[in-house]
């Protein structure tokens, strides 16, 4: 039985902000189905008693002093921006205006 449908791929691509053509969608239905079926082997294990491993190290609450340090100069922070006005990053319009 197939776990993944074309609709699933389209839904996840929407969440991930990716646009796929029809051939890519069909390929991904097959590939994700194969990979997720492989991952289902984990269901053979009873893990009801196991605490999930959230971190690689036993470090908790790493604090530092609340002191002002150096930060990146504005020109350096903006230097890689595809579009900026010297103070801000510029992007296309975010809010749609209502038609008059």
């Amino acid at each position, binding site marked *: 039985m197939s776990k993944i449908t074309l609709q699933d791929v389209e839904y*996840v691509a929407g969440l991930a*902000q990716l646009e796929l053509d029809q051939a890519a969608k069909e390929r991904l239905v097959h590939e994700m189905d194969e990979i997720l079926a492989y991952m289902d082997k*984990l269901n053979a294990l009873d893990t009801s008693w196991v605490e999930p*491993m*959230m971190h690689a*190290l036993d470090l908790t609450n790493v604090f530092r002093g609340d002191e002002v340090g150096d930060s*990146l100069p504005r020109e350096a922070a903006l230097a*890689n921006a595809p579009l900026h006005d010297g103070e801000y990053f510029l992007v296309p319009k*975010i809010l749609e205006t209502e038609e008059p």
Partner: protein
Amino acid sequence: MTPWYQKTAWETRRAVVAGDITAAAVVESYLGRIREADGKVDAYTQVWQDSALAQAAEVDAAVQRGDDPGPLAGAPVSLKEVLCTQQGHTTCGSRILNGFRSPYDATAVQRLANAGAIFLGKVNMDEFAMGSSTENSSIKRTRNPWNLDCVPGGSSGGSAASVAADECAFSIGSDTGGSIRQPAALCGCVGVKPTYGRVSRYGLVAFASSLDQIGPLTKDVRDAAVVLNALCGQDPHDATSAPLPVPDFTKALTGDVRGLRLGLPREFFTEDLGPEMRQRVELAVDVLRAQGAEVVEVSLPHTGYGVAVYYIIATAEASANLARFDGVRYGYRYKDARNIREMYVRTKSEGFGQEVQRRILLGTYVLSSGYYDAYYLKAQKVRALIKRDFDQAFEHCDAIVGPTSPTPAFAFGAKSDPLEMYLSDIYTISANLAALPGVSVPCGVTEAGLPAGLQILGRPFEEETVLRIAHCYEQHRGFDMGKPALKSHARQ
């Protein structure tokens, strides 16, 4: 006489400090080698000739003044494209970062500079370190110096190929599921993944933040120890770097493994392991046994679940980390968008390659509402079981020894099925999941002339033990790995 480009970093440093050779002449030797070899290997994405010579002049001036030029003085290094450098570009092998100039240096890069290492340039990788063959680079195809028809492994394939072809004294890569150890094994060099937290990840472009570590690829184990001395240590810029003292790793290279217990996990020696690889690894274990190590069988019962756990956790973390490449602050932007949503979507869809998109989609799926418990939470629980397997095994042994990779280097295009490619990481992944240190050291050459790697895994923060074992093996393995011919087998 051996050309300078064939020497190790520690030999080079010793000669530079003694005044036997100038750092400038060492760099010239490597630049000549790159001109000669890189047309065949294609490891380098950028060569920094002028700045390398300027750095060499500084080292030579320090030597002239009688100052200490540093523990890696005059040793030329190549850097994986995933490491942020103010110099040149930092592309991660991706179209989306084409032309990106980092405003700062990674801590690892800064530490190498402080140690006197000389940056020759940057080397190729699978896009965002996602892959096991370097075929997923958007820049170029890097070839295995032992057979130009084969992949160098990945994702640090450019690093491994540049070391194997003597195009650098050593290289710095990153390892999320085997991306240092596997290419090191496939190219016949030494590769170390330190314990998670040993090396600052500041300036390492993130793939899977709970798994990523920076580490060296070198020509011998002593170089790995010397480079780790320079790289390791807590960094205020990385809250996950460990607040632990860093030993002098070269002191661990005693050549003596008497009294050490080596665990052979029976789950690493199944039918998945190719017969030639098994034979090379078993011979290597015999060498260590003859040197006085005790060999015991251990069990890591959840080994078979590692790849599934890894590709849930790594893709989940990647889907979150890569969301930042939206065309706003840096990197590629789709220019003709009429609204912000279209800009995001077209930027990512045109900027990310096929494997990266596949992993973002998988990661998004396993984190999405309704599947989080079934996949992501389940994987975190099985990750705990894998860690527990190692904790229990280390009650019976001091290190775990086995193969690095189930097969030697494979031909381009041989693993076109994504799952098949993922399974080539079967022996390396568990060290990342359990946050252990691991080293791959060359243990012979197959009938077809391709290197095999011996993997040694240790308890967390016991790099010294794995280096000691790897070094003892290297000293006593009884053969020379030789140098790759930089030829394709078809032409031999």
